């Protein structure tokens, strides 16, 4: 029950009580669970595409070396991990007796092949993480030694593994064009469910793996089906009609979410998304001389009523942001940073001081703002931002585009004064801080320093933290990163919010890990 207590401490609330009573019930076997997906996935190989949409499906079929639970990191295909003193060799003990779905044994060869050919060369984000990986040795069939040219913090690698540590079967990939390999669309893994069929535009089916390594009793379900329903209102109707059991990652509108949260048939909440926390942001283009003035950026922060936005847009699911690292990041997070309370008078005074007095119409200057098209939160937050700034005499013109248009306008052409989007935090601060705040990323890279922010101090801190092996010193460096970001304000990490899921109460053991929608669901069962 240690895990149960941890969870109660972490979150509290009725949901946990429900989960606790559910565990006491007798497990029922069998049944088919139907899951809502908003958009299609072309690639179902998590070693090729690091994205929650891919994990949601392939996470049931392919497993990572390590997963994250409420008790911390636990081994899945790895059982133990350790680092050499200099941090240049990291050893994984691999689980024995695990078989791929086609019957071949899982060994270190698979890990070595995947690490060198996919994680290092092809997998987004992982190519940065594994840039210094030189070789993976296999002293025994179930020992993998990762050799790095520069020290690799064990903590960083372990934190990355749940997302970026899925091995593929070497015997199906070796000697093929990996990107065009047909198994990218019909994955073969070691997980509790075997891939059956992908009917484009309709569904994906996976069925029970009878030889699952955790034991004959797992998984409890016979089958998992993912249904593609692009229309959010139709998805909410399908939930109500009982045709689907779960919709994660804010798959239905907030209006329906709030309405159905009062329906006794459903659980609605952010539990199970602690690993997928995102920030709603305001991003500045520091190439604009007005915005290059720190007083203007501070004034804008003071003009934002974060609590109001939290209540109306996120319906209370979230909290004010405190820099690039969210509160779920454990020791690497700190509360001790400069903050900017809602204060219109102070905001106006700061703008006056910066020399931007209102004209006859009460307007100080104009800004071109691009809200990201990532759904309800970003659109409404962009609209709120425009209204809020009007109160301090800044006229905001909203320029709305779809995803490719937005990404190009902001990241490649820098054709914006301010923008708002969200930044999804990736388990460990190393990747996230480098991507967002370190200077030197080539122009056009999505989610990379679009602000034009360059600070030698920040670059130094990020580099030092990435190579620091001592967890305590590392955490301290990340606290400094947070403080510096909250002082320099190249971007306002205004609101920290997890994603939300709506789940039929017929599902038991649901959302019991911090990355549940991406996890394997070996212990999920259906009460019917």
């Amino acid at each position: 029950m240690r895990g149960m207590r941890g969870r109660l401490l972490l979150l509290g609330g009725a949901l946990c009580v429900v989960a606790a009573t559910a565990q006491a019930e007798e497990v029922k076997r069998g049944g088919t669970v139907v899951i809502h997906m908003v958009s299609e996935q072309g690639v179902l190989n998590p070693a090729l595409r690091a994205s929650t949409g891919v994990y949601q499906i392939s996470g049931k079929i392919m497993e990572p070396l390590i997963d994250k639970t409420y008790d911390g990191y636990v081994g899945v295909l790895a059982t133990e991990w350790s680092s050499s003193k200099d941090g240049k060799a990291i050893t994984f003990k691999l689980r024995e007796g695990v078989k791929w779905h086609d019957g071949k044994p899982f060994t270190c060869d698979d890990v070595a092949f995947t690490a060198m050919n996919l994680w290092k060369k092809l997998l987004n984000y992982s190519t940065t993480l594994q840039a210094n990986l030189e070789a993976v040795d296999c002293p025994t069939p179930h020992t993998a030694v990762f050799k790095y040219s520069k020290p690799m913090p064990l903590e960083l690698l372990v934190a990355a593994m749940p997302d970026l540590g899925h091995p593929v079967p070497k015997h199906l990939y070796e000697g093929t064009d990996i990107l065009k390999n047909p198994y990218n669309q019909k994955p073969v893994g070691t997980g509790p469910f075997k891939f059956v069929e992908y009917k484009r535009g309709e569904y994906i089916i996976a069925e029970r793996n009878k030889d699952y390594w955790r034991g004959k009793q797992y998984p409890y379900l016979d089958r998992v089906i993912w249904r593609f329903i692009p229309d959010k209102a139709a998805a909410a109707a399908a939930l109500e009609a009982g045709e689907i059991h779960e919709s994660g990652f804010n798959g239905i509108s907030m209006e329906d979410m709030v309405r159905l949260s009062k329906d006794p048939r459903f659980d609605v909440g952010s539990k199970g998304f602690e690993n997928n926390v995102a920030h709603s942001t305001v991003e500045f283009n520091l190439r604009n001389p007005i915005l290059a003035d720190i007083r203007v950026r501070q004034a804008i922060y003071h003009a934002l009523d974060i609590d109001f936005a939290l209540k109306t847009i996120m319906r209370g699911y979230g909290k004010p942001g405190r820099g690039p690292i969210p509160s779920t990041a454990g020791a690497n997070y700190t509360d001790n940073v400069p903050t900017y309370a809602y204060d219109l008078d102070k905001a106006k005074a700061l703008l006056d001081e910066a020399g931007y007095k209102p004209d006859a119409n009460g307007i100080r200057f104009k800004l071109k703002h691009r809200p990201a098209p990532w759904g309800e939160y970003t659109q409404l937050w962009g609209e709120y931002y425009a209204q809020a700034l009007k109160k301090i005499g800044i006229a905001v013109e909203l320029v709305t585009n779809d995803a490719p248009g937005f990404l190009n306008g902001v990241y490649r052409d820098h054709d914006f004064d301010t923008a708002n989007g969200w930044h999804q935090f990736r388990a460990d601060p190393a990747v996230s801080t480098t991507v967002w705040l370190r200077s030197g990323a080539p122009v056009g890279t999505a989610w990379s320093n679009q602000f034009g922010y360059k600070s030698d101090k920040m670059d130094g801190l990020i580099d030092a933290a990435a190579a620091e092996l001592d967890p305590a010193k590392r955490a301290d460096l990340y606290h400094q990163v947070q403080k510096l970001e909250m002082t320099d304000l190249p971007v306002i990490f205004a609101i920290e919010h997890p994603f939300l899921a709506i789940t039929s109460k017929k599902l038991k053991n649901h959302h019991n890990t911090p990355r549940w929608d991406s996890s394997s669901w070996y212990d999920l069962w259906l009460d019917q």
Partner: protein
Amino acid sequence: MSLPVPPLLTYTVRRVVQAIPIIILIMIGSFLLIKLAPGDTVDALVGDMGGADPAFIARLRAEYGLDESVMVQLWRYMLKLAQFDFGWSYVYEQPVITVLMSRIGNTMLLMASSLAMAFTFGVALGAIAARRAYSWTDNMISTLGLVFYAMPSFFLSLLLILIFSVKLGWLPVGGIRTIGAFKTGWADVADVARHLVMPTAALSLIYLAFYMRLMRTSVLEVMDLDFVRTARAKGAGGARLMFHHVMRNALLPVVTLLGLQFSTVLGGSVIVETIFSLPGIGQLAYTSVVKRDLNTLMGIIAISSIIVVIVNVVTDLVYAWLDPRIELK
């Protein structure tokens, strides 16, 4: 001695040949139009993934041939198209032709059932309304038509879902088949039909209103013509007068509209297919635009323009059959 070629055949062949430059122009125009939209499929993919490093993005672009100039891309695409190669969809990771073929059946089924329903009921109701012009029946039918006409299809779709799926539980919310039921034979046909009831209704009601209004006016007009009076004078009454003399003439404008509207129904299916998550061409077109899946989108445009050209030719042929005075030249 040359073989007499039937005029119908020469006409059809000539029309089809004339259509080829039109289709080529449509393809070039669409290609350039799509290229005008900011961002490409790699941007959309990276957006979906939540970011990627620059090397990854550059590699994808090179692989997809997106690093070339637009004109080179267009030339390559048209060369491939000339060999009936629609290319590769990077979103579905399948050849475009495979993606299209798996969808087109569903769209055709939806369009055929919707148009058939709209045409049959529209014509029948319109004729009845005209026969009883300005009576209670006429007013009832006309009001109903106005309601259908004014109701946007997305609203009607959601309304139908709310009533028949959520509240009554009679019909499935969406999809084309019950997933995981693996029905075969007639059970499968019945299953598909059940899934098509609401989409067909949502798509057809607005067109039904069109045809009804037009048929009513048309019948009223034809009934006043001299040949109808002549027919009546020579003793043709009731049903024969209506079906043989009036309807056949009154149908001409309705058939024109049917031919013209075929393409708008294709457009309307985008909304209906998206809401009912029907895996058809309309839904595919929508996701292809969002994901900048150029090859798939171009494939859809090519198929759609071919369909529209065929329908137009067929419409003209039906004209000639309905009214022998019209000559096929």
